[in-house]
């Protein structure tokens, strides 16, 4: 049990994070993107650009978690982007529940331009939760060929 625990605590999750240009990106730039995880940032002009396919593709390729960082309700630069992002987040969440993927692997954090502490705290919390949940078991092993004509 302790061995297992040690193994998990050493695990550094690979995370893809889609970052809204107008809020979270500014904060992350200030902290120079230093966070204790294997984070990959994808900067988008609005989180409304993200649709469920981005999230599923990330999981298909084997990331351990997907983080969506956008603006809070009413603060979207384009008025409706965060509403769409929320809709898409909910769709992805529901489908992932059906698939049996842990819901902790996907998170939407809404912060405004000045909420530096809230963003860093929630991101650290997300990383810690992922460390507990463990690696993504749904990565497809494409090295083995199953079909011979």
């Amino acid at each position: 049990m302790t061995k297992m625990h040690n193994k998990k605590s050493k695990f550094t999750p690979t995370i893809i994070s889609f970052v809204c240009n107008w809020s979270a990106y500014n904060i992350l730039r200030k902290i120079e993107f230093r966070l204790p995880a294997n984070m990959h940032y994808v900067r988008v002009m609005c989180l409304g650009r993200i649709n469920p396919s981005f999230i599923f593709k990330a999981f298909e390729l084997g990331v351990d978690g997907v983080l969506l960082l956008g603006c809070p309700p009413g603060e979207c630069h384009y008025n409706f982007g965060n509403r769409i992002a929320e809709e898409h987040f909910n769709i992805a969440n529901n489908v992932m529940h059906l698939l049996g993927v842990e819901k902790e692997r996907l998170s939407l954090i809404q912060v405004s331009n000045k909420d530096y502490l809230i963003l860093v705290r929630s991101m650290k919390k997300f990383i810690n939760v992922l460390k507990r949940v463990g690696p993504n078991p749904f990565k497809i092993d494409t090295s083995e060929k199953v079909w011979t004509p």
Partner: protein
Amino acid sequence: MDAIDKAIKRTKVYYCLDCGKCTSICPIALRNPDYSPRRIVSSAIHGSHEYLLKDNLLWECLTCKMCDERCPSDVYYSEFIRDVRIEAGKIGQEGECSHGGAIQSLMRIMTQPDLKQNRLAWISEDLKVAKEGEYLYFVGCLPYFDAFFTDLNLNTISIAKSAVKILNYLGIEPVIMENERCCGHDLLWTGDIENFIRLARFNLSEIKKTGCKKLIVSCPECYTTLKIDYPKYVGDLGMDIIHISEFLAENLTDDKLKFKKSKKKVTYQDPCRLGRYSGIYEQPRDIIKAIDGLKLNEMEKNRKNAVCCGTSAWINCNSVSKQIQIDRLIEAKSTGADFLITACPKCQIHFKCAMNDRNVSKDTKIKIMDFTALVANSLE
């Protein structure tokens, strides 16, 4: 001999007489002058294979089998396209996936054997299912469609509920697999053969584990994949595969089904996979006609000539698809029917999506109902 030569030989493409009947009947070629099945065939036979594999028009085909039906030389064009797509997939080519490829990603995630899905939440208390028995019901992707297409008011899961309700009515408690996966139809037709085989092998072993003797399917695509493609690629399931309309038609003759009276007028859309691929034209019509008072108004193009719903396997959904859908909806509306009945959940999704478009006139709007749901609602 390379794989395309083999495909040409297997699907008898070299018999092509260049008569152009395929192009004249093809729903895509009617609306997109760049596309022509005949031209693809001739470029496969006479041209460079490398060019063929990289041709974008390869992914335009609906694989609706309309051309196969008309071909005087018996060329299996749809199967040829499938084989060429498999080869194109190997060099990294793919069609333009609708919905950003989300559905293909879901299917690929489903190839993981360790997945523990929560897909049985729809089985309510009034539906009786068994752990083991003679009949197995294959649900397919129905729970996923409801979760994914939230803007279309689909309720595709009612198809699964209706199927179980009908089986219960006939005194059957079907077995439903907790761990079934997508049948892989869309991966096969978009050239991802590797992941199709993974899904198929998994489903094959799960289905065999249940020990059932008959497999009932309500989705036409699952039906053809399980019945025709699984034996070809992964092995025989070792059980009878029956579409729910076939099963109902068998029971109709025994007077086991009693229907409520109805005053509706309906029209029926033949799904390609059920009609042209499996030859099931009359069974759904027999059931619809057996419902007392329900009037079936046939569309002008019906049975073998029924037009496809515009998109197949979630690729290349574009303005041409939309035109096909609108034309078909206008045709359905012109029959004077109150409901358009279709047996395929994907036809329903595509037509509802077309009607959702703001630019589409109200004249095309018709209520769409699934065949299985119609039967279950009409039972006494």
